[in-house]
């Protein structure tokens, strides 16, 4: 292995991903690459995403053909310094073998989700990493733990990371005992109790951000820090048409344009993504849960709870990240805690900023968690 040659491989986004399709390169062969640059687009059976360069150098080989499917970890490009001879790169490419899945057979591995009984019912969660710090990822309205597809493994390298499906969401209990922000905050604390998590860094997206703030206000001793990604609870405005459209959409044609509001690049919304959301929405109890949450948290297209003052008063260390092009919650809300929090508004990103700018968000989160 030549340490000066850096392979670009088909990424693995989530445990269920076995292959991905190269949909296009964003840089040309010979381009100078900086670590973190977006270099190509990949589509999986779940979602389309961007692969970022892990190392700096020159893009010396482009091996992944557009519209072609490759297994996870297949070599699709090579980055190396200019002075590395072509022959060495050719030899590297020729000798490259796709590494086998670690541990059990890939087909059997599947998504390793777990379930836990809590006072709010049976909740699904995923766990990664073994680090000393504990991180709890809390998704938004209508989402699930797969919203952290591009983040959970990166954070797992530095901490013990949990991502849960909130009550009413994903594969968790669909009946909501208390469809309010305090009710959901109690459910999150119940989840932490059930798993013996004494204290955690809470990372919340959208409604999950409001929840993280509420938990920090209600139980500050349980919260090491909060990271608010495109967070609710920082101002009154919210895209009421999105909320109403998401709740009422019953078919693919209605749902797709609604979901496109979530992303800076609407083409991120694949047919499979729409189908997966539809499958969730069609489970008994989901419609009732979503309507109850929408009525309680976002009545008349406004946010019922603004928590910035109480969050500031709680004194919890806070990171705020928004996508500049957020069409669900105005990116201007990021400034609500600008006096006490680290605030970053990322360009070319929408409401799902943790997916669209995963590399940058992961970097910010890792730094934030490390304190």
């Amino acid at each position, binding site marked *: 292995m030549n340490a000066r040659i850096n392979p670009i491989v088909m990424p693995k986004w989530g445990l269920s991903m076995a292959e991905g399709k190269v949909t296009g390169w964003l840089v040309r062969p010979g381009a100078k690459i900086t670590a973190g640059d977006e270099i190509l687009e990949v589509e999986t059976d779940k979602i389309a995403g961007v692969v970022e360069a892990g190392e700096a150098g020159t893009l010396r080989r482009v091996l992944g053909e557009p519209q072609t499917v490759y297994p996870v970890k297949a070599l699709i490009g090579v980055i190396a310094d200019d002075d590395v001879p072509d022959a060495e790169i050719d030899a590297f490419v020729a000798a490259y073998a796709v590494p086998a899945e670690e541990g059990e057979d890939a087909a059997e591995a*599947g*998504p390793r*989700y777990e379930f836990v009984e809590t006072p709010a019912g049976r909740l699904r969660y995923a766990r990664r990493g073994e680090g000393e710090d504990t991180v709890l990822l809390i998704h938004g309205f209508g989402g699930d733990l797969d919203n952290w597809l591009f983040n959970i493994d990166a954070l797992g390298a530095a901490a013990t990371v949990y991502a849960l499906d909130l009550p009413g969401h994903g*594969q968790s209990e*669909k009946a909501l005992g208390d469809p309010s922000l305090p009710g959901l905050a109690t459910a999150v604390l119940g989840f932490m109790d059930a798993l013996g998590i004494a204290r955690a860094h809470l990372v919340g997206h959208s409604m999950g951000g409001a929840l993280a703030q509420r938990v920090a206000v209600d139980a500050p001793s349980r919260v090491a820090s909060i990271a608010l990604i495109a967070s609710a609870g920082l101002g009154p405005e919210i895209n009421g048409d999105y909320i109403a459209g998401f709740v009422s959409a*019953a*078919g*693919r*044609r209605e749902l797709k344009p609604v979901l496109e509001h979530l992303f800076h690049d609407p083409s991120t919304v694949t*047919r499979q993504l729409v*189908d997966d959301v539809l*499958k969730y929405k*069609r*489970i*008994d*109890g989901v419609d009732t849960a979503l309507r109850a949450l929408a009525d309680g948290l976002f009545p008349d297209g406004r946010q019922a709870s603004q928590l910035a003052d109480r969050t500031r008063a709680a004194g919890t260390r806070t990171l705020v990240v928004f996508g500049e092009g957020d069409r669900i919650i105005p990116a201007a809300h990021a400034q609500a805690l600008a006096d006490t929090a680290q605030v970053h508004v990322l360009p070319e990103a929408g409401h799902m900023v943790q997916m669209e700018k995963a590399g940058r968000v992961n970097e910010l989160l890792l730094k934030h968690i490390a304190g």
Partner: protein
Amino acid sequence: MGRKISYKQAINEALDLEMRRDPTVIVLGEDIVGGAGAPGEADAWGGVLGVTKGLHAKHGDRLMDTPLSESAYIGAAIGAAACGMRPVAELMFLDFMGVCFDQILNQAAKFKYMFGGKAKTPVVIRAMVGAGFRAAAQHSQMLTPLFTHVPGLKVVCPSNAYDAKGLLIQAIRDDDPVIFCEHKALYGHECDVPEEAYAIPFAEANVAREGKDVTIVGYGLTVHRALAAAEDLARRGGIEAEVIDLRTLSPMDWDTVIESVEATGRLVVVDEANPRCSIASDVAAYVTQHAFGALKAAPQMVTAPHTPVPFSPVLEDLYIPSADAVSAAVSRITAKALAA
């Protein structure tokens, strides 16, 4: 999702969940209770292939064994539906529908229309369809077109376990009579299925594979043949086929079919029914009428031959449309020759 169950288990689970949810749901059929309590039988047989096995133990008298008299118990199920129950009648093989067709065609399908919408018949008639089971001409037919032809009936034919559960739940909750066709060759097919109840609305086709060169339409078992053909076409000829699973034949999701053909310009319909007046001929005619301008070539039909299902295993295997036949139909209407 992470939990795989079979098509057969999915149907069983749908019945179980709906019987738990709604006390008006009852199940009738031959041998669905038979065997219960007999020596060596801890449970009922659960019908001829055991699809309803276990339900009698859970729901007792709400499962009823019927005599070998389809006209009687299908009529009873329709009558019960008209009186406020939600019966699910298991007819074993759809081929046996002939003796009770009057109850279905002239009664169940018509009540809503004849009584100004004041009567409804929320009955589901489940039955096995399709060849490949060495069950010969009277137990192997794909009679879906017969029922699709009748206004007032809804006709469903799922291709996988996820759809089987969601469509059967929708069928039970639907206020109209539904003919629910289960391809016997798919009973062992497994895929991810949520534990909870969920309903898939009718008239929503599923795009099982995306492609830009040709649209292949199928339902039931033929979806799997179409998908195999699509993989073969992509590998050998670089042809990207879009595969549409109709899921429900009445009502039909014409929008998805037309949208796809408008994008690809080519249509192949795969149907295990006999070719004349089939689902294949229906789809081909509809697309020709409504998207003629988009077509780059004549639509192709890949169907069973116009014969009864043969008893000879060799001939029966030839009877069902194969993936090779689908690939050949695609190659007839594309400029690209397939590699050997």
